[in-house]
């Protein structure tokens, strides 16, 4: 079948009917909400109202939170840093698992791995957070083992490491699922050809499989990073109020003061940062990769 025929035909018909319902709902409720958030960030907070309706707009909130001192930049940086470490580690350990699942021929192994993977993906994040609080608590399993072996207790909760571990636990199934597709798409005959030419399995992996799965791997990494940086309940419980990420900051500032415009100013810069990183890096890298013949 000549797909070029179909593609050319479809250029003339209109998809509006199909796209309208979802589009309208999204534009109104979602884009509308975000636009209103921006507008609100330009308002001044008067106690007694959440949403402000005055006619005067200014960037005062931005100056307060993002101009006067660097405190919030610190929290933003913490989020980016902690999120980054967690993402990199998660993708690194997710890749072997995704590779095994895509390439293994033994049905039983595949089924077991898939079951564990899907199970850990769908387990509620409350459960995941709770279980790590238990593990990392002063009376938790890790400390129990340490004291049993003769070491002194280690305080985990409230450290960067605790949050990172929790994030890894959360990101890992997502990263694995996102990587299976790109790895599967690497044509196994290419790997066979490389082997035929004398490459060992390791070489095949680094020379063929990894490079060809790069676009998908990058997409998966960016998705994980966006999720990691925006994490809320994981840093809230595993960070114990000491490690604070941007989502926690926005939430706690608002719950303390009900200052909606102020929160909005925090939120908008946070949002802009994440969007910039996600879409910006994506475009940068896809442009470079297209030069190598991936596009």
């Amino acid at each position, binding site marked *: 079948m000549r797909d070029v025929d179909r593609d050319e035909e479809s250029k003339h018909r209109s998809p509006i009917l199909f796209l309208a319902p979802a589009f309208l709902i*999204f534009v109104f409720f979602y884009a509308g909400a975000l636009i*209103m958030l921006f507008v609100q960030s330009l308002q001044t907070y008067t106690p007694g109202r959440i949403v402000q309706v005055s006619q005067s707009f200014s960037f005062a909130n931005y100056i307060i939170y993002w101009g006067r001192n660097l405190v919030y930049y610190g929290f933003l940086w913490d989020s980016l840093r902690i999120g980054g470490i967690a993402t990199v580690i998660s993708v690194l350990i997710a890749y072997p698992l995704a590779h095994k699942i895509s390439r293994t021929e033994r049905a039983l192994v595949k089924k077991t791995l898939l079951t564990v993977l*899907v199970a850990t993906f769908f387990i509620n994040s409350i459960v995941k957070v709770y279980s790590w609080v238990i593990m990392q608590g002063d009376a938790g399993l890790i400390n129990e083992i340490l004291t049993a072996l003769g070491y002194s207790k280690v305080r985990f909760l409230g450290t960067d490491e605790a949050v990172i571990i929790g994030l890894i636990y959360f990101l890992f199934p997502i990263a694995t*699922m996102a990587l299976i597709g790109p790895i599967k798409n690497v044509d196994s005959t290419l790997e066979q050809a490389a082997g035929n030419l004398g490459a060992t399995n390791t070489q095949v992996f680094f020379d063929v499989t990894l490079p060809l799965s790069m676009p998908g791997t990058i997409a998966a990494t960016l998705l994980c990073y966006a999720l990691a940086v925006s994490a809320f309940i994981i840093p809230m419980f595993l960070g114990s109020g000491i490690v604070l990420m941007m989502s926690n900051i926005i*939430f706690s500032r608002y719950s303390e003061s009900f200052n909606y415009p102020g*929160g*909005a100013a925090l939120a908008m810069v946070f949002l802009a940062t994440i969007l910039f990183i996600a879409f910006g890096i994506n475009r940068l890298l896809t442009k470079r990769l297209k030069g190598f013949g991936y596009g």
Partner: protein
Amino acid sequence: MDRFHLYRMIDLLGRPIVLVVLLLTLFFLILPIVITIIISFDPRSYLAYLPPPALSVRWYESFLRNPNFMQGLRTSVVVGGVSTLISTVLGIFASYGLVRYDFRGKESLNNFFLSPLVVPSVVTGFALLGFLSTVGIRGSLERLMIAHVIITLPYTIRTVSATLTGFDRSLEEAALNLGATPVRTFLDVTLPMIKFGVVAGAVFAFAMSLDDVSVSIFLADAFSSTLPVNLFAYMKSTFDPTVAAASVLLMGFTVGIIIVIEKVMGLDKFVGIGV
């Protein structure tokens, strides 16, 4: 040692190392779950070293008898169910428009629909709080449903698009050729073929709806609140094993999901469509 033998050695060493890494990974994944299950049966009301001195179901009772949690469960099921339904239907239509047609701005539109995945959920929830108040939607149940449609739509669009893209168009042409109108073709041929994408999308949507805290927390109130939000609030003050019991029950629900997926389409097909 020459290069060839070096690579051979890496190959031979590599396999057991990768195996060890995989096993450690699996262990790392399963351990916290196991611990939580054990704790849920631990009668002590403070967190202490394992193993528990006895086994008890008091925390399950505590959870199931708690009216707050039960209300949360009801709300979560209702909100999840309704938003999944809406999201799935919208997702089918939107996917069809995105996959079958070519137009300027298609990629941007696609990114727009998928953006709730990337936009921090706290920001989404916070924004909706202000907006929904302004447009007069004050009921928390309505607010939650709208919010959950927004956060679940990316999943349904993603899965249905994946199945539509891989779909053999000549099947639809054959139906048209045999006399079926476009509507009939869609119902008789297209829809059954994308069934897997639709089911996968619905499963993701419902699970993500049940999972959400950071959006729902801004939109719930004292009367209508979702279960995860209620658990979240509980955990802020008390850390007793009631949450462990709730966790085990939620895990049971996860097991249910997996059984359903396996029965309907098999796990590997699901993962193929999933992300």
